[in-house]
């Protein structure tokens, strides 16, 4: 029975394995807010200034990039950047500090 259970677990894991999430690159919130301008800042600018970070690329050509900003007490705020298919920042948003 134990063997069967192990096999079942292995089978399930094969179907739904989830990779280790890479946290966003850590950058001070003030620096992000001052450096990233929707409609002007490009993907190349972000890479040159802050380096690679956690991102999701969609079939539409849009990309969503995540930066984290230390906020004390082990908490981080999130700074999310939406990049349009032309490679230009379309929008940004910030999420209030929370534990990761």
């Amino acid at each position: 029975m134990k063997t069967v259970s192990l096999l079942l677990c292995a089978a399930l894991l094969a179907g739904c394995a989830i990779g280790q999430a890479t946290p966003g690159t850590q950058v001070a919130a003030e620096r992000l807010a001052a450096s990233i301008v929707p409609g002007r800042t490009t993907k190349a600018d972000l890479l040159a200034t802050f380096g690679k970070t956690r991102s999701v690329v969609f079939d539409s050509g849009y990309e969503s990039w995540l930066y984290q900003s230390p906020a004390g007490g082990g908490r981080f705020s999130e700074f999310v950047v939406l990049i349009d298919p032309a490679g230009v920042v379309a929008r940004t948003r910030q999420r209030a500090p929370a534990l990761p």
Partner: protein
Amino acid sequence: MRPLLPALLLLVAAAAANAAGGGQQPVAKVNVSTTRDPVDKSYRKMIQGMERFEREHALAPSAPLRFQLLPRMPGLKMDGISLRVAGDTVSVPVTIAPDNSFVLPRNEQALREDAAVLANRKTTSMTWRALIRSPGLAPDTRRLGDLRLECRVGAEAGLVSNNSQLFAWLSNALMSVDQVCNSPEGNYLFFADRPLFGVRLRAGARVEDLPFKMLYAGGEQTPEMLRFCDCQVLLDRTYYAPLWDKSWPDDTIVEFDYMTDAAPAADAQEAR
């Protein structure tokens, strides 16, 4: 289920060999009640989902239950879909609305025959969800109690198939509704109407944005993993809701901030 068929055939073959060998034992008779493909949607399971909806309707007291078909494979045309409940001797057509939602009719004969719910598309090309929307909500919002009930109905009805099809039936058999809908690890994905940039929860004075890890199926799907997710072509519309977190009441409003403004045609459609 298909995986049981080889075993049943072996049983029949063994019984036949025994009879051919001159044994006096009566031949075992095996009735295979259905040949429904395991990746087809089970009518019985979907009816069980409807029964759970009735039992737990208090989560969304003024909302009706519909089901909805969504694209799973790239390039799939989602217009002109037809749907039917198909048993051994019964076939019941199901009316599909323009948004590919439908109400599943009850049919006792189809229940007895362990019918399948079949579309005129390859089963694995689409994904299915329960659709429970309380009336009177503002545009671009949902209600958390509706989502909680969608999860419970969807999980009970066996609608989600995030694993490889080979193991989907096993996963459905081992995962309880509570494991899916009452746990932070439950991973029941919801789909917004359009690509999302952010999702905000609002309950009275309490307002919080969902973290990045609750958007885009967790934001960690590689192309290899994505093909096992029923979010394959709708990744930018996916989000998790804190179904398990009772500190958010059922009347919590879930607000969507879309990546872009609605196209004019969509605006006109919504206004109708």
